[in-house]
């Protein structure tokens, strides 16, 4: 049975089910049991599972990551949360030198079942230090798994899969997905890490998208369809490992590809996708393109943030050029303010 849930509700439900199923699962992070419960995703868990398994933490990100690793060594299956990915920059030593390598460097003797939830902020003045989308860093590191679910269905299924995985999983949630609704099956299910999903089929062009950019890609695809261009939208979902087979097959079919990512282009995940397509020698009708963040930090003022973030209209423009389509010029400005995901969002977070 499936009903519509919002993205944040699906996270909450997935966590709840995993904790009910396995007493070793625990969740910790600053504010986890507070009244806001990480934007609703951890609401009610402490009441249900107690303060040992659902715990607030001191403001000590690096040390607490070490603590979570230690819990995993002791046989627990910790989930750790960061309100913003940017705060997790304090934890790179523990995550990359340690968590990513313990299984390998101790010759398989240790396992590191650990899920690190990181939220990517956007809009309402999140600015340079509350909006970074550094999935590409993690996707560079062997030993880590990296996922960025886009839909409520996937975020629940992939969270359960991540919790059940014996490797450290970097679980990246884009804040602008939180209020999106979609069908979510009841009960336990999992979406395998490493599989992409074709969100929309099309024969003229492949748009490979991560996270919130998949939402913009779908919008673009719908608009392009009204002009006779059929874009296939592939939601990557998992960046390490990533589903090369699905992406390459789609590109081989369409002969045109745009890769769009919520992070920076240079030396990013989008470069890897383009590079693999090139290495595979897939013949293209036109060179591949990337639509990602411009090469600068995030500006805070809504005036510049509106220019900074690529949107459906930008994808459409690139697609039109690639497909030789004469798209009527569109106003980049739209009716809703560009610094909020939807009109229910009134700041300050």
């Amino acid at each position, binding site marked *: 049975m499936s009903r519509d849930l919002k993205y944040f509700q699906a996270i909450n439900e997935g966590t709840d089910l995993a904790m009910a199923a396995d007493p070793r699962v625990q969740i910790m992070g*600053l504010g986890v049991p507070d*009244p806001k419960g990480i934007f609703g995703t951890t609401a009610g868990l402490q009441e249900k599972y107690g303060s040992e398994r659902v715990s607030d933490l001191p403001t000590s990100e*690096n040390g607490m990551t070490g603590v979570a690793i230690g819990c995993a060594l002791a046989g627990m299956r910790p989930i750790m949360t960061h309100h913003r990915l940017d705060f997790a920059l304090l934890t790179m030593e523990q995550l990359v030198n340690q968590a990513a390598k313990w299984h390998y460097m101790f010759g398989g003797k240790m396992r590191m079942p650990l899920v690190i939830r990181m939220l990517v902020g956007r809009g309402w003045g*999140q*600015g340079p230090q509350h909006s970074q989308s550094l999935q590409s860093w993690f996707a560079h590191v062997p030993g880590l798994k990296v996922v960025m679910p886009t839909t409520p269905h996937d975020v629940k299924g992939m969270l359960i899969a991540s919790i059940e995985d014996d490797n450290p999983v970097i679980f990246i949630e884009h804040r602008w997905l939180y209020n999106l609704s979609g069908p979510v099956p009841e009960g336990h299910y999992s979406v395998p890490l490493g599989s992409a999903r074709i969100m929309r089929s099309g024969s003229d062009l492949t748009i490979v998208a991560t996270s919130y950019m998949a939402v913009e890609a779908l919008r673009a695809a719908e608009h392009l369809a009204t002009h006779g261009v059929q874009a296939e939208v592939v939601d990557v979902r998992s960046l390490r490992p990533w589903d090369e087979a699905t992406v390459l097959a789609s590109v081989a079919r369409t002969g045109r590809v745009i890769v769009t990512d919520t992070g920076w282009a240079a030396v990013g995940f989008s470069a890897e996708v383009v590079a693999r397509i090139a290495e595979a020698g897939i013949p293209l009708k036109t060179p591949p393109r990337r639509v990602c963040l411009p090469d600068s930090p995030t500006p*805070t*003022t809504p005036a*510049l943030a509106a220019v900074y973030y690529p949107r459906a209209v930008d994808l459409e423009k690139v697609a039109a050029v690639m497909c030789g389509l004469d798209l009527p010029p569109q106003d980049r400005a739209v009716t809703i303010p560009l*610094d909020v995901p939807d009109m229910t969002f009134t700041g*300050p977070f």
Partner: protein
Amino acid sequence: MPTIAPRTTDPATLRRLYRDLVRVRMVDERIAELYPEQQMRCPVHLSIGQEAVSAGVCARLERQDWVMSGHRSHGHFLAKGGSLPSMLAEMYGRATGCTGGKGGSMHLIDLEAGFLGAVPIVGSTIPMAVGAAWGARSRGESRVVVSFFGEAATEEGVFHEAVNFACLKKLPVIFVCENNLFSVYTPLDVRQPGNREVADVARGHGIESVQADGNDTVGVYDLAGWAVDRARAGQGPTFLEFKTYRWREHCGPYYDNDIGYRTEAEYLAWREKCPVERFERDLLASGVVDAQGMTEIRAAITRELDEAVAFAKASPFPPDHEMATFTYAE
């Protein structure tokens, strides 16, 4: 415990302190009033309830002294002499803002006033303040540097690394911790053990460390004076923990005692200790400022605020082509 001079009674000083204190309060209250218009589209962390620390500490500093801060920086910025119009314009995201809109409320700066910068990553400017003090000394400059932060920042490893280094190099740094009991909605008792105070942890590093009432403007001023004197005399760094309380929600203009992380009673008890009202009672009692004088001071601030708000709202947004400027310095 430090031997500090007898409590300050100099009328001019008290008047100045009062003005600085009320100004911080009034600016943040104006922000709270305007915020629901949804034109300041960035997070705001108001200092209301905690103003005595800003006013008392910064009044002891010279212009060439430096201040750094974190997410809750309005009070520090204003008390150090940061430009109000440029601060408000920044919140409105305008080109005339102190960072031209790039940073927003969480990234205040005013180099002319010696406000070296604030960033919202908890604890992050603490070692920078220490480095700035070291760098200035290396360059033969005489500056005291104050690092403002909340008690949660003392849980970050970088705080300890910074204090150790300041002690090692005997730097003229004053670490000012505003202990308002919460990190967002998380109370102190699930973050730090109950058998010791924040000031004790600092003291372990071998730094002079004092805990004091953060709502007593003159007390803050006098204690800061002692610390500043030590710094100027080359006696090294000082840690000051001020107990105080944030009245409004962690981020944003509203009250949030109803959501359940603290009680209305706790808030009301602290509301009783309002630093502004307390100082006003003292001033009225001593006659240093009378009711009329207070009204005048407030009126002048209101005028300044009206102008600054008008300036900010009338200022242009930065043009699109400035989006990527300053990614690199030439």
